[in-house]
């Protein structure tokens, strides 16, 4: 059953604005990192004069399985029509009354067999069975109100199938938006699926038929350009950016720091990939050798590891440097983000190696206009984002002396930066507002000729 959650579109007379069908599995109230890009994209298309219909899953899916953030649902532009269709996710069904005897007796075997079955309609475990549901829904939407463009966002990649269906049957152009990558492991840089796999064959077909293909950063885009050189021109980077209404406010003019101790801050999840130990060694070296770091503090906010309880090894690394001013402050709630950033003089961008990974934290940091110390390999995708920031202090390697020098330089900058430099940093960050990343592509799509066959 298809449910519409229109905010008044039904009563409005038909108009000549282009109609966008936006296929996105994770749409508010879904709680998760990728949902911010999805929400911002739907809203931005609507604000730039498109009639937007979002095809997504029923709210109950998020209530039952992923958790919800109702505040995100409130941020959906009232002009956006949301069509919700069912999504079965039996692998996550927690109600044991719904389980078969076989599943209860052999849960792991059941999961293995179910994964194989899921991949029959589409090669994506867990999501494959959604294909016929969204294809049918897209057909119904197009029949009722012809679609001029389909934008499908992955993952899950099954979202592309609705776009493919309208393209094949009715010639509707479509855009593929990758928030991650399908064939590329963005952490290792390895290829995930062989050239002859079903996933690879699907992607080849989809890329060949797409009007545009969007990626979140240049390294991922370039990897795909090399993979599909004939279609390189249609591949674009639409960076994530920050949402002004959700990001920490720019710090504005601050009283001079003087000679007081500098407070360094980190906000985010510290995973085992994050070079925390290298940072701590560099910090301790700096505290011992650099006058600029005298009395300085490093406050680590966020989760230590992927779980609610801090990982003992990561916590021990921090606590071992407590005497040198390093402390763990726990996770930060949304309501406390602004107050937390307000305590910092310098931001610590401690990231794991990953040529293809741009952390969302980078954009949040840029929004503040504060000096940023990069404690990550220069090859990290964040380097390209930060290049040109007037108060950016990168490291060439993670040796203690190198990290200490960057920290000391940032501390000096926090004390001595001119109002003009602060203004430049804020202006640099403002360039990464998410809407500014989307606008050029939306304008280009609006200007492109749309060839749509009449719906039957």
């Amino acid at each position, binding site marked *: 059953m298809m449910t519409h959650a229109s905010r008044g579109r039904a009563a409005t007379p038909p108009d000549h604005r282009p109609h966008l069908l936006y296929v996105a599995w994770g749409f508010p109230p879904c709680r998760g*990192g990728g949902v911010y890009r999805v929400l911002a994209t739907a809203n931005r298309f609507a604000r730039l004069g498109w009639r937007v219909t979002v095809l997504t899953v029923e709210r109950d899916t998020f209530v039952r399985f992923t958790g919800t953030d109702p505040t995100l649902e409130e941020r959906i532009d009232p002009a956006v029509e949301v069509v919700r269709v069912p999504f079965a996710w039996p692998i996550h069904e*927690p109600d*044991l009354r719904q*389980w078969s005897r076989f599943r209860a007796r052999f849960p*792991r075997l059941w999961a293995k067999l179910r994964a194989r079955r899921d991949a029959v309609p589409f090669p994506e475990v867990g999501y494959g069975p959604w294909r016929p549901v969204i294809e049918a829904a897209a057909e119904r939407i197009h029949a009722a109100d012809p679609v001029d463009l389909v934008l499908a966002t992955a993952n899950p990649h099954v979202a592309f199938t609705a776009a493919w269906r309208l393209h094949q049957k009715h010639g509707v152009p479509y855009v593929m938006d990758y928030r991650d990558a399908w064939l590329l492991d963005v952490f290792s840089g390895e290829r995930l699926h062989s050239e002859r796999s079903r996933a690879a064959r699907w992607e080849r077909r989809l890329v060949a038929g797409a009007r545009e293909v969007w990626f979140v950063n240049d390294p991922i885009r370039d990897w795909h350009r090399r993979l599909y050189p004939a279609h390189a021109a249609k591949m674009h980077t639409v960076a994530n950016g920050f949402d002004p209404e959700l990001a920490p406010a720019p710090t504005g003019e601050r009283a001079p720091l003087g000679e007081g101790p500098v407070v360094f801050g980190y906000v985010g999840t510290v995973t085992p990939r994050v070079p925390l130990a290298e940072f701590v060694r560099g910090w301790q070296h700096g505290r011992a050798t650099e006058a600029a770091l005298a009395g300085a503090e490093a406050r680590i906010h966020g989760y230590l590891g*992927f*779980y*609610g*309880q801090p990982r*003992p090894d990561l916590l021990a690394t921090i606590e071992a440097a407590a005497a040198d001013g390093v402390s763990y402050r726990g996770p930060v709630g949304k309501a406390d983000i602004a107050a937390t950033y307000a305590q910092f003089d310098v931001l610590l961008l401690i990231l794991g190696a990953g040529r293809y990974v741009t952390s969302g934290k980078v954009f949040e940091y840029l929004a503040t206009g504060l000096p940023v110390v990069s404690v990550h390999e220069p090859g990290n995708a964040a380097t390209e984002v930060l290049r040109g920031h007037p108060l950016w202090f990168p490291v060439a390697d993670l040796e203690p002396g190198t990290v200490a020098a960057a920290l000391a330089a940032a501390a000096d900058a926090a004390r001595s930066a001119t109002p003009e430099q602060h203004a430049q940093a804020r202006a640099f960050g403002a360039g990464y507002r998410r809407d500014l990343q989307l606008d050029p592509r939306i304008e280009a799509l609006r200007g492109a000729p749309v060839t749509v066959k009449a719906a039957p």
Partner: protein
Amino acid sequence: MKVTLLGTATLGRAQLAAVVKDLGRDDLELTLVSWSAPLDPVDDLVPQVVVLNGRAATAAAAVPPAAVPPAAAPSAVPDASPNPVAAPATARRPVSRLRKLVRQVKAARLAAQYWSRLRSHPEALAAATGADLVVVLDSRAVRAGWQLARRPSAPRVLNGAAAAGRELTAR
């Protein structure tokens, strides 16, 4: 509200604290029906603990607290694993097929024993059938949870503390 937890693992304090945190409410009357006694004193977290395997209960007190992985993941999408208190993946030696088979057989045997003991243990059965919600904490307790869920007057039985937390929040 009465909530009964079913688990076969030897839980430490950190694990149980994570479970309680996942449940997300402080007005719950918690009972743990466990195969073996918790590693640490957990009276303040779970006031009532029913131990089904008597031998382990007497020996458990001497075991020092372990650094155990917690259960609450901040991840938006729940783990596909049917074991909701599974430890995060770490680098391990490849496991042979035979070893896997042995593990599976042992797990199945424990699952059967757990259910058998639970249904013949009056206190445990009362705690399970008299609860408003039963939460299965690991895959070996699924069988017992499923058997309970089939009873006509059974309470709702959910797999995983995170799912139970979402259910309790929605209630």
